[in-house]
């Protein structure tokens, strides 16, 4: 696997991501790409848009980063089928850039939320999640202020019909209910795929659940799935 992590001004979980990717890639770290670059290395097969507060989350989360030079190149690569993993602020950037449908608004509580949540794996028919079981619940932390996924009802239906919902906020038994809706997201959605399932965007931080001492290992499955499918 040859992964690249894009750093925007204000990105701050790029190194958490680097630790996780290095772990599943035989100790080989991903390459770092700068927001001002207009090209990515040729042989990259995974692009990661990491978490953080790009441009301070000013105006709208992800809006300014979505317009940076590197995003033109990321869009081109994504169209050509290169895998993109967009986490938290990365998810916001991907939506703003049109790589994924919908928008991420302020949490219904209007507060930043940092806690471990249960996610139900909605599909394993993807090269991001094939190492999980369908319907499995995993414990992964969230840390965001604007994770309230918003999309019109027809489009949500289309996502569901095409098996493009990746994760939902659930309880520990995998029940998805209003009471397990962390942030007001439509249909409890925590993560989605693009139509070709080559782009995954999600609010939670699987990269912070890859270590038995800090946060547990439930997020490893995602990185192992990616590494396996790209090796």
């Amino acid at each position: 696997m040859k992964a690249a992590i894009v750093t925007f001004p204000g990105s701050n979980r790029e190194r958490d991501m680097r630790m996780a990717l290095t772990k599943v890639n035989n100790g080989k770290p991903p390459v770092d790409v700068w927001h001002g670059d207009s090209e990515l290395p040729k042989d990259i097969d995974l692009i990661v848009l990491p978490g953080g507060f790009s441009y301070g989350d000013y105006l709208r989360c992800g809006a300014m980063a979505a317009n940076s030079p590197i995003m033109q190149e990321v869009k081109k690569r994504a169209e050509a089928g290169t895998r993109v993993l967009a986490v938290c602020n990365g998810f916001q950037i991907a939506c703003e850039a049109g790589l994924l449908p919908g928008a991420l608004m302020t949490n219904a509580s209007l507060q930043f939320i940092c806690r471990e949540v249960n996610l139900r794996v909605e599909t394993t028919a993807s090269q991001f999640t094939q190492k999980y079981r369908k319907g499995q619940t995993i414990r992964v932390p969230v840390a965001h202020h604007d994770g309230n996924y918003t999309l019109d009802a027809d489009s949500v239906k289309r996502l569901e019909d095409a098996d493009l919902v990746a994760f939902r906020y659930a309880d520990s038994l995998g029940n998805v209910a209003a009471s397990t809706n962390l942030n007001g997201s439509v249909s409890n959605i925590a993560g989605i795929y693009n139509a070709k399932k080559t782009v995954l965007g999600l609010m939670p931080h699987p990269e912070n659940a890859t270590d038995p001492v800090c946060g547990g290992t439930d997020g490893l499955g995602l990185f192992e799935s990616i590494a396996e499918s790209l090796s």
Partner: protein
Amino acid sequence: MGLSKAEYDLVLEIMGREPNQVELGIFSVMWSEHCSYKSSKKWLKTLPTKAPWVICGPGENAGVIDIGDGYAAIFKMESHNHPSFIEPYQGAATGVGGILRDVFTMGARPVANLNALRFGSPDHAKTRHLVSGVVHGIGGYGNSVGVPTVAGEVNFHPSYNGNILVNAMTVGLAKTDKIFYSAAAGLGNPVVYVGSKTGRDGIHGATMASAEFTEDSEEKRPTVQVGDPFTEKLLIEACLELMNTDTIVAIQDMGAAGLTSSSFEMASKGGMGIVIDLDKVPARETGMTPFEFMLSESQERMLIILKPGSEPQAEAIFKKWELDFAVIGHLTDTGRMVLRFNGEQVGDLPIDPLAAASPEYDRPWVKTPPQKPLGRVNHPLPFVEALGKLIGSPDLSSRRWIWEQYDHLIRGNTAQVPGGDAAVVRIEGNEKKALAMTTDCTPRYVFADPVEGGKQAVAETWRNLTAVGARPLAITDNMNFGNPERPEIMGQFVGAVEGIREACLALDYPVVSGNVSLYNETNGKGILPTPAIGGVGILDDVTKMATLAFKLPGEAILLVGK
């Protein structure tokens, strides 16, 4: 401008003439309680600050201790009480920003934030707004810069109704051979300004922090500074990148009293003089005066002395991070600060009398009289009911709703999250080891008996660190007291310092940094004396860390101690 008659006479003597407005402004902030520690210095000197593992004690931007294997922990706690009362969100946010700069200016990557908060009575009209604003502000800044907020404490008491306490602490990690200090050196070396532009924010913040509150303090509103965590994040990355090159002679953040205190302190420590061209200072607004440039407390700015010829290399780094960079002056050997503006000299002051040799007071104090013993307390309630009431009380109830608003996991090294006795943060690069950290103080104990209360605060941090399995190493303190010109308040301060001293000596647990916030009063009523202590310790094997949850049914519960 906050100088007493005697102090003004001293100004005249030092200057040998009437100072102009800029010079007088500089005297006034440099000799403010906040910058000069004039009431507290005498007593702070009595604290134990040495141990074989102390690399740098009080006097620098933060304290530095050796944690083995070539690593150092750098930490400090600082207050932002008055600004947080006036504008809780921005006050708390800029408090976090300020303490972060104190730590990364020494070469450390900040790895954890903590806080110690005191609010008025929960049913006081302002409390809810203040709590919510302060918590949002701490989270808003810390979450954005990407430093986990891992521990803290919160108390409520009516004495804080008109004067809340917001103390923020940062812990950073550095290599022991890559620590940066603030003493200026090298005749002719360039003095460089980096970070955000200067606006008219917070002019006279430092003097405000040293004045008692009155009802009309709300009039002082426009001096509020607004924090920009986005710029701070860029500044952290740019400074750490610069520190990887061999270009820095000295570096210091611009905190309270901005350009004035940073330039005077750097020059004084290095025994140098400085010439500053104020026209070169990046300005956010038009028409700013020398007085405003020198006294502005705009946030997210640093002052650096570079090695000669390294300006282009340094500038390239700050440009890459989209920050301002300007050579604003150079070092001289005159021991004087010369300020120029529009081709004219607008100020000329000796450095030492304003910095190292500023006034020092031995304020009168009286010993706090012993309290009457409480006597026997009858239990007014059945045990279970009493327990429920205690657990539900504002001072003891769960703080989860607060710490869930802080990103306590970012960087992936938080081995023990808030909710336990101390937070545990793994040391990156040496992942078997971890730092443990906590903040503690019980102000009502200090009020009842300053000496015992001071001891207790230190001992509580010690216990919390040992409870997670760490070896306690050193503390930072934040001394929050009322008006030191009143002997009974000064007596509380003296007593608390004495208690801290005794506990630190007994535990071989030195003080490596700290901060004093006096004049915490509203209309003549002081707060409970609150010497907040931040303790740091080390775990050699993080997998042996202890947590407070009961693990298995049937296991014995032991009570130890007396």
